[in-house]
């Protein structure tokens, strides 16, 4: 029983981290109707920036205090992500207004490759460390209820907390603010939003900036846990099923979807895996998404997709 709970909790925490990445997808989709295949590349790029700058700053500026170095690195990385957002809007999105979804998707695929290559060229392709002071040791909890207690990873716990806070903030932003409403209008219909005076280009830059920050936070958390390396992109690919489950337009959906996928992956790997040869993590999330696509494509919380005649 205790073991099952451990697996469950581990899954929930991983799920929260998936949600973080999925949030980026949902944001951009909600605001521009663009499915950003480059989100994973952005996470890696942001993490690389953070890692390398926190390494370089002590050398360049003679800052000894690692906390200050980290903060400076964070700011620089954030600025870089803003620049990336602005460039993407300027060079790509602006020219593809009102193209259909598949074209935009393929364009973001191109952007993903570009950012990928750029990151490796500018920042290097080794494995890098991010150290933001996250506690690494696991901790035993609930020792009086379960014999031996449950082993919980403190780092995952904090990550989950950060993710939850970020998600709550974003949910509020979309629902309660005027900019949030404008973003939803843009996601619905580019031309219509333009014609009522919503500054499309500015909105898109804002959204991609926010998505960039989300990517940075996700990159820091995942990078701190796994080390900053290419496999982060694979992690991001795992976030796609999350948005399918949760619904592409739903911020709470990103959380719930992430939790379900996180738990599902861990539980199925532990209990089903040995029966079929192991390693089913790589497709479990996708197969679950496939089932949803067949029976409920809009996900748990998304808006129904209507086809006009």
């Amino acid at each position, binding site marked *: 029983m205790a073991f099952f709970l451990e697996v469950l909790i581990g899954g929930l925490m991983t799920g929260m981290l998936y949600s973080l990445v999925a949030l980026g997808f949902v944001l951009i989709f909600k605001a521009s109707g663009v*499915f950003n295949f480059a989100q994973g590349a952005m996470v890696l790029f942001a993490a690389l920036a953070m890692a390398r700058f926190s390494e370089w700053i002590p050398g360049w500026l003679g800052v000894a205090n690692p906390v200050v170095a980290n903060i400076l690195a964070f700011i620089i990385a954030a600025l870089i992500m803003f620049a990336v957002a602005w460039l993407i809007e300027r*060079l*790509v999105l602006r*020219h*593809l207004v009102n*193209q*259909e*979804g*598949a*074209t935009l*998707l*393929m*364009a973001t*695929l*191109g*952007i*993903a*490759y*570009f*950012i*990928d*290559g*750029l990151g*490796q*060229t500018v920042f290097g*392709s080794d494995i890098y460390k991010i150290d933001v002071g996250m506690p690494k040791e696991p901790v035993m909890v609930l020792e009086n209820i379960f014999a031996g207690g449950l082993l919980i990873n403190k780092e995952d716990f904090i990550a989950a907390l950060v993710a939850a806070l970020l998600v709550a903030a974003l949910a509020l932003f979309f629902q309660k603010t005027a900019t949030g409403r404008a973003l939803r209008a843009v996601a619905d219909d580019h031309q219509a939003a333009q014609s009522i005076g919503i500054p499309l280009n500015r909105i898109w830059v804002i959204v991609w900036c926010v998505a960039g920050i989300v990517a940075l936070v996700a990159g820091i958390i995942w990078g701190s846990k796994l080390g900053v390396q290419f496999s982060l992109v694979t992690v991001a*690919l795992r976030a*796609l*099923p999350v948005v*399918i489950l949760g619904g592409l337009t739903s911020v709470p959906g990103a959380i719930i979807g992430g939790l379900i996928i996180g738990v599902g992956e861990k539980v199925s790997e532990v209990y089903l895996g040995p029966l*079929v*040869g*192991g*390693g*089913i993590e*790589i*497709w479990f999330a*996708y*197969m679950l*998404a*496939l089932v949803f*696509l*067949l029976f409920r*494509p809009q996900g748990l919380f998304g808006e129904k*997709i209507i*086809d006009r*005649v």
Partner: protein
Amino acid sequence: MIYRENGQFKTSYAADQQIFPILQDRWAILGILAFAFVAVPLFADEYLFRAILIPFLILSLAALGVNLLVGYCGQITLGAGAFMAVGAYAAFNFIVRVDGMPLVGALLLGGFTAAAVGVVFGVPSLRVRGLYLAVATLAAQFFWDWAFLRIKWFTNDSSSGSVSVSNLSLFGFPIESPTEKYLFCLAVLVVFALLAKNLTRGAIGRQWMAIRDMDVAAEVIGIRPMYAKLSAFAVSSFFLGVAGGLWGFVHLGSWEPAAFSLDRSFQLLFMVIIGGLGSIMGSFFGAAFIVILPIFLNQLLPWLGGLVGVTISTAGVSHAEIMIFGALIVFFLIVEPHGIARLWSTAKEKLRLWPFPH
């Protein structure tokens, strides 16, 4: 002025429906085929065959398959690699488990297996489209990645999913030397290109394009979306399966699942986007482009770097390659969504008038 169809009147619908209605085109194609079958083997060296020509031929076939599905039928797929894998491993199983199975038989059976799998994984296209469909095709990619790695039966109990074949022969003729391999792949490509052209100019091709352009209207004139979409998946996967078999058997000799990974799927998609969606020629252009670009960059970038005094490592070149691919995709989508094929046909239009301005 040389390239004018003036005076070439068609007096029957059959003449009008030819693949190459313009006489100059017919001569050009005969010339190209003669060159490919006769001249190239005389002059090409082993490197040219192994590194450029054979991959180009096989990936053209695969790109053709992807183009039929994405370009003609409008169904996006990110899982093309999986169907190549199914074709390759199925062909392998047929060779290994069935005594005396001929090479062509195994490849075709691999193709049919891939077609069947393609139909199954194409079912989501009946419910969703666009990016949702893309995610569904990714499920195919990851599932088969895992299956060929972990399910021992598929790989005849090999531990890492890697398998190999050898001693290929066609009706007693060996297919061992680069020249023999090249001619075999060329022959397969020519046949399949003809099949693809016939399909796209026939009733099923029109069904696919109708579904691509406006699937609701297509239903109204009596096209069943289910039949059109699933047949597109089937035919596309058939082409991919045969290409996969060729890739594994003829090009690699021995392979593991990573040969058909997500990167391969993206590579194929890039080929058809850059080459030209909805165009047979486009598949060839795209394949040529993607095969030649890395080699070209490998020469160009260090040289450029040398000019400015910067040494660029091989890793640097491969990173640059990735960046350039990405940039090119975006460039083509913005500037010429119909790819090189459109640039080519625009050039031909201009050629009809040249040297006159209008």
